[in-house]
């Protein structure tokens, strides 16, 4: 069984975002970038399935600018076998990314495609479902547990009410929740070894996919700031303030 894992390079989750003054976006120059956190869970799960002898090959794919390769390299260091970097010069919408991934799936014929449930930059939560739609494959989103069966997966999904379990026939798309597993760190020897693993580069423009933006970003701005609060000295004071000043209890 072959697993394709899609990863995205995003601003690191610990970085405090700064909005550009001209309203055109957020500051990314000299900002720490990392793999989108739930994409790390997606890679980890694929590696675990391979370690359990249920997968033969893991391919990590990313769609992004030159430096997006770093995320593929990291996936290779934790256990992916080879990488694909689809080069683009601009930021693509999930619809365009899903069309590119469809081309990669058609080329590689994986049995499973894993990715994080949401990218923490645009917070869209779309790509996996869109890819599933383009391929007419079943989708199991927000997965917190995956059980590999013969020709199917049983997936536990985190939903508003609690947990839901579905069974999807393969080939299938799974989008991963942060609770799916604990991503491992790459060891130094594995980081060195990963440097020798192949990453195929493909220009998105060669795939014959319409990647033109459909959504205009008119303005990016800072959210309204909360006015500064106060520190209270005691529980009594807190309760009095909540009752008499804020009037919420």
């Amino acid at each position, binding site marked *: 069984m072959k697993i394709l894992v899609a990863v995205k390079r995003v601003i690191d989750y610990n970085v405090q975002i700064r909005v550009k003054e001209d309203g055109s976006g957020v500051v990314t120059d000299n900002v720490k970038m990392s793999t989108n956190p739930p994409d790390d869970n997606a890679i980890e799960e694929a590696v675990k399935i391979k370690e359990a002898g249920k997968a033969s090959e893991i391919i990590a794919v990313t769609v992004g600018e030159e430096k997006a390769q770093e995320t593929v390299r990291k996936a290779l260091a934790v256990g992916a076998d080879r990488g694909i970097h689809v080069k683009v010069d601009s930021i693509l919408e999930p619809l365009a990314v899903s069309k590119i991934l469809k081309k990669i799936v058609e080329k590689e014929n994986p049995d499973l495609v894993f990715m994080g449930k949401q990218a923490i930059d645009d917070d869209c939560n779309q790509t996996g479902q869109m890819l599933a739609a383009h391929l007419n494959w079943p989708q199991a989103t*927000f997965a917190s547990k995956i059980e590999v069966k013969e020709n199917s997966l049983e997936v536990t*999904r985190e939903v508003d009410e609690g947990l839901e379990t579905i069974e999807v026939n393969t080939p299938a798309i799974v989008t991963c929740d942060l609770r799916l597993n604990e991503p491992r760190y790459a060891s130094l020897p594995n980081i060195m070894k990963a440097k020798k693993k192949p990453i195929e580069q493909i220009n998105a423009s060669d795939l014959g996919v319409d990647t033109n933006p459909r959504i205009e970003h008119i303005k990016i701005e800072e959210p309204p700031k909360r006015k500064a609060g106060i520190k209270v000295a005691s529980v009594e004071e807190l309760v009095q303030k909540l009752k008499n000043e804020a009037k919420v209890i």
Partner: protein
Amino acid sequence: MSVLLIAEHNNKEVKSFTLNAITAASQIDQDLHVLLIGHNADDVAKSLSEVPLVKKVLHMDNEIYENYIAENYTSAILKHADKYSHIVCSANTFGKNLMPRIAALLDISQVSDIIKVIAPDTFLRPIYAGNAFATVKSNDDKKCITIRPTSFEAAETTGGSAEIEKVDAADKTENTKFVNREEIKSDRPELGTARIVISGGRGLQSGENFKLITDVADKLNAAIGASRAAVDAGYITNEHQVGQTGKVVVPDLYIAVGISGAIQHLAGMKESKVIVAINKDGEAPIFSVADYGLEADLFEALPQFLEELNKLNTIQK
């Protein structure tokens, strides 16, 4: 222009977030139709028809819709998509799972999680865990939109009398099967709609210690939330998680206890009207969004808090 809203329900009742989504949808265009896909859900159809903002209910009833499967819902919705300028639903796990599948098949670039309708093609949405707001304009002919429910008031539920039209079912997928759902039943208010939320974090140190939170929640008739750290540590189940990838809450009062205030947690609660933080680390980032901060050991502060609340006899329900 007409808007088609996809209702979320359990065949007995409309889920409350659908009512918030109705309000947003009616701001896009007043010709708002609701598609109800379910099985033996006549009561749901009736209650939707009584929502004054709803102009028509399309009711698709078939046993294949006993449980919500995104693939089956998608084929059902696509049967009706041509007649509408907008297809919308709530941006919770229901709608997040569903809408991109529809959008992709219609070749539409979806606008996710809107918090304001600026014009029928222009919306405000948070990005980067709410650390930036983007004003976006969709240039697709038809729009697929998900709505952040807590950013809109719930629609009135009585006084309307929209027509209910029965419509035929669509194809069923053979590739996805519903197995089961573990719903945690609770007498407490729902986290997404509660007036007061009290949340615990890693500072609680154990699941047993969450009882300190529960006791205060009982007193205040509050919903219980948690940080991701607390859920990951197994102190409490996932449906309590508040944050960027959990639930977004906007209560009148949010009490964060033993939560340091990672960006991802703040994304889920910083629009709350009044925020209280109780934490023994005076430098914790949670204090930067708190209206009232109490630097204290929660194991002492929570029992005292409960005691002080017990002295008041006027707790609003």
